[in-house]
């Protein structure tokens, strides 16, 4: 593999850009903190912490979805992802970093007793509310703190274990026995990660972090919906990094065939997201019970109408129509464009999921949201590019690497 570039070097331009984005984000963060975060007005405070919440949760889940991608493809004995597996691995190194930010924000909300965000923090209100009383076993600060800590710590730990194990694939070629042991260990670690992922992203964490903002409302679809949203964004992020590296002349072994499969994931999970979106919407629309329709009232008929339907257009109609053709999924420019669009669409989706419940009267989308977004994007670019540069780009001794090289769709 003499002619193959194994080592990614972070271009100076990329570093400058990411630092500039972080700087813009920090300015927005500090201005927001001064004008809104510490303001006497509860609405301003709620807006500031809500903005931090949905951004940090979104980016943590998206980066964790990259590790989920590695986990499922490992369990499926997949081979095609090996030639670019360092990209999702590098993205998943963000889980501890973004996880720590999410943890800090959520802990501030809990210990700062922000009951305008989590109504169930208000002990007096809970005591007089039979519905909230019934949910108190799940929605209480102690359980919230323990479960959040465990979730973020174990995502980071299990992801780190998978990445650590795969450093072995950079070493000497393995014998058949060594290869079999390596693959077996990989499946065990991936399975551990996936079980924990299912318990958290697949069920409890979205309920706890985001659905409990509307503590009276509930939807069993909510977690799957959040998962679908984060997974399709995670695939888009992987696609963006793969295309960037291809543009820079790296990842010679990754071809249109691999891009086609990533594009299929983006297409399929956009449709899956819509399926869950619709399942949640239609059951509530059909039953028409006030305690359930309360969630959609200000989204479909209130100020969030525009964002709510824009969300559906960006995340369903655009991927459906644009990514359907085979040639579109094999076109680097089009996939890159769609990846940016899908990431933006699901960011907006998370915006309306959180802020739609926190600020029901008016849409708050403005400089603060885009500023905080720029902070997270800058951090993501900065750390992911560093993580990519810290390891060889191609796991040259991975037993399945050949499958990836000859991969054909």
């Amino acid at each position, binding site marked *: 593999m003499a002619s193959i570039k194994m080592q990614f070097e972070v271009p100076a331009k990329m570093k400058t850009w990411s630092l500039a984005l972080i700087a813009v984000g920090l300015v927005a963060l500090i201005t927001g903190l001064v004008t809104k975060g510490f303001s006497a007005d509860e609405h301003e405070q709620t807006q500031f912490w809500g903005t931090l919440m949905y951004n940090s949760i979104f980016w943590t889940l998206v980066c964790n979805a990259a590790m989920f991608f590695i986990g499922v493809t490992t369990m499926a004995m997949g081979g095609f992802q090996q030639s670019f597996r360092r990209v999702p691995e590098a993205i998943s190194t963000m889980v501890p970093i973004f996880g720590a930010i999410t943890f800090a924000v959520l802990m501030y909300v809990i210990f700062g007793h922000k009951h305008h965000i989590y109504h169930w923090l208000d002990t007096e209100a809970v005591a007089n509310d039979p519905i909230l009383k019934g949910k108190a076993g799940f929605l209480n600060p102690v359980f919230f703190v323990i479960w959040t800590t465990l979730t973020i710590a174990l995502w980071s730990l299990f992801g780190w274990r998978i990445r650590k194990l795969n450093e072995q694939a950079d070493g000497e070629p393995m014998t058949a026995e060594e290869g079999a042991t390596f693959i077996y260990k990989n499946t065990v670690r991936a399975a551990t990660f996936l079980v924990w992922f299912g318990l958290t992203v697949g069920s409890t964490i979205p309920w706890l972090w985001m659905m409990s903002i509307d503590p009276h409302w509930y939807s069993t679809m909510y977690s799957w919906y959040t998962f679908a949203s984060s997974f399709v964004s995670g695939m888009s992020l992987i696609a963006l990094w793969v295309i960037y590296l291809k543009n820079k002349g790296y990842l010679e072994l990754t071809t249109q065939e691999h891009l086609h499969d990533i594009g299929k994931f983006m297409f399929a999970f956009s449709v899956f997201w819509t399926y869950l979106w619709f399942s949640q919407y239609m059951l509530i629309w059909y039953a*028409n019970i006030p305690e359930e329709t309360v969630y959609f009232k200000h989204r479909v008929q209130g100020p969030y109408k525009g964002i709510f339907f824009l969300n559906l257009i960006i995340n369903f109609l655009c991927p459906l129509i644009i990514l359907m053709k*085979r040639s579109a999924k094999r076109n680097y420019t089009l996939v890159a464009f769609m990846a940016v669009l899908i990431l933006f669409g699901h960011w907006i989706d998370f915006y309306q999921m959180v802020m739609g419940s926190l600020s029901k009267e008016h849409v708050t989308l403005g400089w603060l949201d885009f500023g905080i977004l720029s902070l997270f994007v800058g951090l993501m670019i900065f750390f992911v590019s560093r993580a990519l540069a810290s390891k060889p780009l191609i796991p040259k001794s991975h037993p399945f690497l050949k499958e990836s090289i000859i991969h054909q769709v």
Partner: protein
Amino acid sequence: MAKKKFVVGCFEDEAVLFPAVKKVRAAGYKIHDVYTPFAVHGLDHALGLRETSIHTAGFIYGITGTTTALSTISWIFTKDWPLNIGGKPHFALPAWIPIIFELTVLFAAVGMVLTFCYLCQLAPGVKKHHFHPRATDDLFVMAIECTDTTNTDDLQAFLQSNGAIELSVQVAEEGWWFGRYDNENVPFQNKEIVAA
């Protein structure tokens, strides 16, 4: 339906078949088809077959299903027989989407299966010539169409040198026919049979 002369070479391994396909095409022979016991990845590219259009057909069947369902249901529930169902509007789009989706899938699926059968010339009673019975078991069978100038002996030697384990020259119907496998029963008895 004309009968044609074919040189048939049988291969035991994909790894031998692929280079042979390339060499036969490079030598200018026209490969009628390669019959394999299972789907061989990349063989269509090696044979130079064009990309299938069945997905485009599927898309068209799909939107036909969508429009059929949408127009039928909306006509029934808003014009023909409007019913008050739980106080919902007559044009109750969310409730129809599952049905619209099902009809899209049904039209696309059935349409594509029928198109596929048509393209593969599969239908009840349709018969085609089998170049080698083991093509359905464990042999890769390559049939090369002969022209007037083809030297069958040279071609057989060429195939043998490229790893064919069994060779034959067959005069066979290239299309399909209704009836039985003894070609005498072909209802449209053909006059211009090329001598072997």
